């Protein structure tokens, strides 16, 4: 894989995307990995009446959706010994079981500060199989010179 450097990156560069189809087992597995056992993700019986999102189904953890988006960045940047320093996220739609989530990213900004501190901003997004936006994230990534 080609080593990326700050100089080699251009605004508009696209990151390779990933896709996952999520199931109830995916939510349970993420709960175990994150210690977030909120019943809105883990308990289909409770959600059928409590409906925090207004639907009678469990939904994916926002943190899992975020993790998928960030994986797009780490898959792309970490082979070049880059460092992620700041990440934000916003979750726009609930993600019920059966959703195929595709996450992608694009370089949106280059910040020229000083050697060792230059960074790029990557805009990440998660979409479902219908192209609806599920979540967005921004990551600041420092690349070697």
């Amino acid at each position, binding site marked *: 894989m080609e080593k990326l450097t700050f100089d080699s990156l251009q605004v508009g560069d696209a990151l390779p995307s990933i896709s*996952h189809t999520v199931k109830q087992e*995916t939510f*349970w*597995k*993420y*709960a*175990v*990995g*994150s*210690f*977030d*056992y*909120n*019943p*809105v993700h*883990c*308990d289909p*019986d*409770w959600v059928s*009446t*409590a*409906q*925090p*999102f207004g639907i009678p189904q469990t939904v994916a*953890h*926002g*943190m*899992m959706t*975020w*993790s*998928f988006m*960030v*994986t797009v*960045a*780490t*898959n792309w940047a*970490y082979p070049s*010994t880059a*460092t*992620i*320093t*700041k*990440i*934000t*996220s*916003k*979750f726009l739609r609930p993600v019920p079981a059966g959703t195929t989530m595709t996450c992608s990213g694009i370089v949106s900004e280059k910040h020229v500060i000083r050697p060792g501190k230059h960074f790029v901003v990557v805009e990440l997004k998660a979409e479902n199989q219908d192209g609806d936006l599920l979540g967005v994230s921004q*990551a600041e990534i420092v690349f070697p010179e």
Partner: protein
Amino acid sequence: MSRSNLEQFFETGKQREFDTDFFKGAEEYEVWDEIDFDSQEEIPGEQTFEIKAEDMKSYAAGCLDDNPLFTDEEYARNSPYGQLLAHPIFHTQIIFWCIGSKGRGNWIRTPGSRNPGQYLEIYEPFRVGETIHLGMRPYDRWIKRGKYYLSYEINMYNQDNVKKAKAIGTLILPKSRDDIRKFLQGLRGLED
């Protein structure tokens, strides 16, 4: 929810030990309209988190990430990083573990809460062998379109008090303890 649905995925000591029942004691969780914003002193978590390789690997497994930098200690040792890396969102596991079920910040366990978005700054990578503790403070509380938002600033320090990361953790919560009780009865306890 049957615990066996979860146990099939348990691999680490912490996973076997952690209290997975978010309903238990939920009537006593901190609640949106009772948070004290007057004191801005950092609040410690209920317990510390000693980072083991299995913890990092279990987070990567949970988010279906098979990057060998997160999952293969030998590969990572021979990489330019020289050691196993944590997935950047690994702090989620640390925060839920450290806050626990009875301490301040336990509103993050509230049944019926929703995640609108998060913020994270990473100052240094987490390393296997470090022991992480939290310093938290109430950060913001607001109402927007009938939803009740609460944020804590959550600072993560290692055993030498080196600040490793800062998160602004935000959830949309039931407004009051009565609303939480509705959720505990399987009823919707949100106003929007």
